[in-house]
């Protein structure tokens, strides 16, 4: 007996409607998969989905927290997406985020008494530079030493976590902090000004949105963005045209690193207000999902980062209200990316069922 399977056939050109449908269909697919998982584990799926997908939008406070989480995810994902389109797989944004946070913290840690309007902008700048410098190591390894950037950037993330631990347990530990692994609380001038009164949302969100628009111009309109995309789609065509591959790698990683570093700085100089171990709840990895879910397109990423932020907030609520382990959010994120990749296949392919005529044999 022969199993009749549909064949994947390449489309003449990418399907725009499928491009738009894919993330939503992926959400449905991931929700379905997690639904079955919850059933097997005796978690009430309706309570989980209410908490994950509805509750973040039921109160002004919860909504403002979603906006707060959107900032870093948006920043990091925009940076990563530029690299991903150039097929430079920087998956070490987590480390670049941490380095950004560390570098930004240097100012309030070493000058806790300093005051002035210059402090928080300098921290953000220093953070971006720190993240960029961390990414530059990966870049050097890839361009000069031909090493795989995925492995190097990931290893550097693991090193960054240890570096953070070292600082918090050693030289940067708050002497008055009851031996907790955290730095001093930052002074007022080291904090990014609030954007929406009464919430923790600060003006770094404006930066993130502004940079998204810049990313749109860069990727859709600028010649450099075009060069990066050619390098990603057809490296040999880029070489033929004379677009420098090394340059594309450097640019991709530096943009990604600076954006992640900036996000890290905005996190310590914003909602957290000090350097501590839990500055990132996996933003660097979640941003990879955000970037793909947004179709690696600056506008799509605006939406997907907002959605992913809601998922974070919803996950916190679900932990309390539906007894969902916090890892449930990670499972949902992973299955969401996988579902998206499944559906994204149909942007460039369609299913071709074997025609009935082929089965009729004389």
């Amino acid at each position, binding site marked *: 007996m022969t199993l009749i399977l549909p064949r994947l*056939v390449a489309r003449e050109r990418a399907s725009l409607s499928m491009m738009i449908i894919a993330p939503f269909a992926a959400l449905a697919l991931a929700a379905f998969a997690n639904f079955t998982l919850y059933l097997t584990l005796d978690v009430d799926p309706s309570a989980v989905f209410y908490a994950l997908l509805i509750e973040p939008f039921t109160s002004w406070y919860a909504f403002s927290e979603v906006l707060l989480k959107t900032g870093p995810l948006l920043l990091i994902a925009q940076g990563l997406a530029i690299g991903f389109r150039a097929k430079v797989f920087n998956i070490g944004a987590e480390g670049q985020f941490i380095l950004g946070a560390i570098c930004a913290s240097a100012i309030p840690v070493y000058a806790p008494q300093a005051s002035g309007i210059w402090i928080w902008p300098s921290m953000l700048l220093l953070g971006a530079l720190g993240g960029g410098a961390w990414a530059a190591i990966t870049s050097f390894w890839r361009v000069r030493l031909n090493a795989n950037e995925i492995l190097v950037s990931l290893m550097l993330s693991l090193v960054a976590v240890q570096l953070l631990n070292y600082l918090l347990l050693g030289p940067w530990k708050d002497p008055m902090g009851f031996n907790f692994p955290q730095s001093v609380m930052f002074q007022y001038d080291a904090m990014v000004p609030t954007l929406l009164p009464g919430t923790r949302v600060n003006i770094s969100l404006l930066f993130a949105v502004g940079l998204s628009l810049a990313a749109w111009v860069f990727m859709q309109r*600028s010649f450099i963005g*075009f060069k990066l995309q050619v390098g990603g789609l*057809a490296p040999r*065509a880029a070489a*033929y*045209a004379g677009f420098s591959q090394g340059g594309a790698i450097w640019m991709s990683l530096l943009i990604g690193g600076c954006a992640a570093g900036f996000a890290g700085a905005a996190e310590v100089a914003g909602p957290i207000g000090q350097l501590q171990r839990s500055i990132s709840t996996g933003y660097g990895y979640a941003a990879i999902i955000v970037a793909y879910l947004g179709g690696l397109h600056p506008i799509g990423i605006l939406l997907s980062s907002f959605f992913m932020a809601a998922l974070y907030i919803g996950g916190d609520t679900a932990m309390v209200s539906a007894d969902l382990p916090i890892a449930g959010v990670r499972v949902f994120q992973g299955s969401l990316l996988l579902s998206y990749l499944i559906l994204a296949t149909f942007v460039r392919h369609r299913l071709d069922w074997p025609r009935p005529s082929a089965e009729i044999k004389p």
Partner: protein
Amino acid sequence: MTAPLLSLRDVSKSYGQVHANRGVNLDVASHSIHAILGENGAGKSTLMKLIYGVEKPDSGQIMWQGKQLHLNAPGDARQLGIGMVFQHFSLFETLTVVENVSLVVPGDKKDLAQRITVLGAEFGLDVDPMAHVHTLSVGERQRVEIIRCLLTNPKLLILDEPTSVLPPQSVNRLFETLRKLAADGVSILFISHKLEEIRAICDHATILRAGQVVGNVDPRLHDASALATMMIGHDVPAPLAAKPISTGNKHLELIAVDHIHDDPFSVPLKQINLQVRAGEILGIAGVSGNGQSELAALISGEARLHGSEKQRIMMMSRDVTHLNPAARRHLGFAFVPEDRLGQGAVPEMSLTKNSLLTAHSKGLVRHGLIRMRQATAFAKACIATQDVRTPDEHAEAGALSGGNLQKFIIGREMMLAPKLLFVNQPTWGVDIGAATAIRQQLIALRNDGCAILVISEELDELFEVSDHIQVLNHGRLSARFKTVDTKPEEIGLHMIATGDAA
């Protein structure tokens, strides 16, 4: 009368909208050398895939010795005694000859090695069974493919464009082998678009055009131009007459170039000297795999020479040794690469965006931003002047046929108004009409004073367009021959001369 070895009755196969084969009937007799003649895109390869079990027909029947066949995989075809020698060999470069053979033919290696040697001696297919395939020349690789097939004791051997990679002398040798095989009782399906070869060796020819059989003839009874007319449906246009050679400025000069690429499988180039003057076409002949792609990369700037005082590349009298491709283009250089999809064009991008690849300096970019209107206009102009068959300029490059994409790329490069044009394999896989048009354009450009360098595997083509020919063999370049004073056989001798003569 006995049933033919293989017959096809009303076989059709389509891919989406494209009808690759429509109602094909074919009978192959025993002991026959049977040609399948057709242009690029006529459906020859699809037909062979159906016969070899790689694809299944949508409708129709395939009969083997009078019995109906249902092939699910090439393995089934091999079991019956159908063997196939692919145009792009299905060999594994990192494995040895005997390992390659053992993937198809059962038996332990020692035994197989012996059988390879014996068979090779019998049919003039000698090759070292222990050699790694990447060390072999193209001709030797073809021998490996043929041996691999013969070891499965085929009754029918399919050869897909077997001579396209061979110099004239090796073609004769291949033909001797094929005649011997036919005499031993093996039928041969010989797929080609080269008319003289078919007339020389085949006793029967089935002619395909646009997926349909348009004729069944004995090719020995017709002359080449009659066959060509059957194949393409109308008369072959005549080549454009070239003006006498003028001696303009040297627009390209390679001086004492020695180069070893990072890639260990590449061919080192040794002491390459060449020059192309304005108003001249220089052709580089040679069997592929003798350093053509390495030389092309050096001239285009995709690969750069390692620092050394003596070796240099000059364009328009400027030293460009260390310049990248974009900088070389600024001096008036244009280049049509061998690979259209993935090198000459980005498959997933529209023709408009593909214009930007090399034509960005023609006013398509300002202040670092792409000017879409200008880019669109450029693409439209290119499509119109080159008669590129495409719905519009938004079509993705990957959706165009090979010939149409080649026309677009050549058009794009010509619109750069180059002083020096370098074309690598100008008409590979392009149908005859478009190929003739491309050659005519090259000659017209030369007559206008452009310096042109052409690399081609097709000797006929080089004899048609070039003023001078040099041969690339084992990474070395021969002396320069004036085309009118030489013959294909003489060039062929240089193509197969062994190793380090200089």
